[in-house]
């Protein structure tokens, strides 16, 4: 069996900590959660800045659209193969 060739660009250096699809998905979900956390402030700031619409409708619209992405993240968790990690 051949040794892992450290000079081969096809094989990334694996010394130290590594991350894969699982961590990527986790960070994506954290990013969506962070977006959800700042939405109330953002809705208020948008109304102040643009002088149009109301906070409730902006927040409702944003949450509805964000929900679609959270569902997509859940679907990705279900269908991503983490077995090899």
């Amino acid at each position, binding site marked *: *069996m*051949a*040794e*892992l060739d450290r000079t081969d*660009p*096809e*094989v*990334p*250096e*694996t*010394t*130290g*900590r*590594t*991350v*894969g*699809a699982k961590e*990527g*998905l986790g*960070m*994506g*979900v*954290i*990013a*969506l959660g*962070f*977006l959800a956390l*700042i939405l109330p*402030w*953002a809705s208020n*700031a*948008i109304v102040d*800045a*643009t002088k*149009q*619409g109301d906070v409730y*409708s*902006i927040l409702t*619209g*944003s949450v509805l*659209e*964000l929900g679609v*992405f959270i569902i*997509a*993240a859940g679907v*990705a968790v279900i269908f991503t*193969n983490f077995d*090899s*990690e």
Partner: protein
Amino acid sequence: MAAVAPAARRTRYQQRIPLTYVVTLVPVAAALNIVGGYIDNLLHLPIFMDMIGTAVVAITLGPWWGALVGVITNTGSAFLSGPVGLPFALCNVVGALVWGYGVRSFGMGRTFPRFFVLNLIVAFMVSLTAVPIYVFLFGGATGHFSDLMTAAFLAMGQNLFVSVFSSNILVSLADKLIAGFVALAIIDALPPALSSGIDLIKAARSQRYMYAAIGVVAGIAVVLVSLAVTGS
């Protein structure tokens, strides 16, 4: 050494990447997006220029890392130039997911025509996400150059939804073609370990740069044609 062989055989999507690459590339990509968006705001360009870093990360590291870059970009921009751009973080996330899954799961980066089509799909999907935000949150205008095109379409008798979609898809087509092909050139300049397992256009380096240049020129051509059509 039995444990080594399967790791070397893994596909890129399953391959584990050194954390140092991620810690370096994600903030740099977000900074690239923020600077691009800032320049666009400053010069009132008819494109957005805030998704080049997203494309680079989504293709090299993965779609959800790209989504993270998208959220960081629009949150950072919100602190710099106001909160109006914040809801459009979702557009950046959509772009990351389509670029990432398109190249890494569906092999859409394998040839020049495939990658070209992928950028068109990204533009369409991003516009589909952006239009409801434009119409329902901002009443159709955010102060971007594309508002002039929206006004031109409204003057032609189209309703607000169609006008916003028409102007946004024209701007988005140009923007995503330029972003996608600039990202291709950037990926070519990154360490080979980051892009070695990705199914990207296989050609000589000079030819890949030529493809990138053709893509950017196509994007600029779309901008010019859309400006001519709308008379903006």
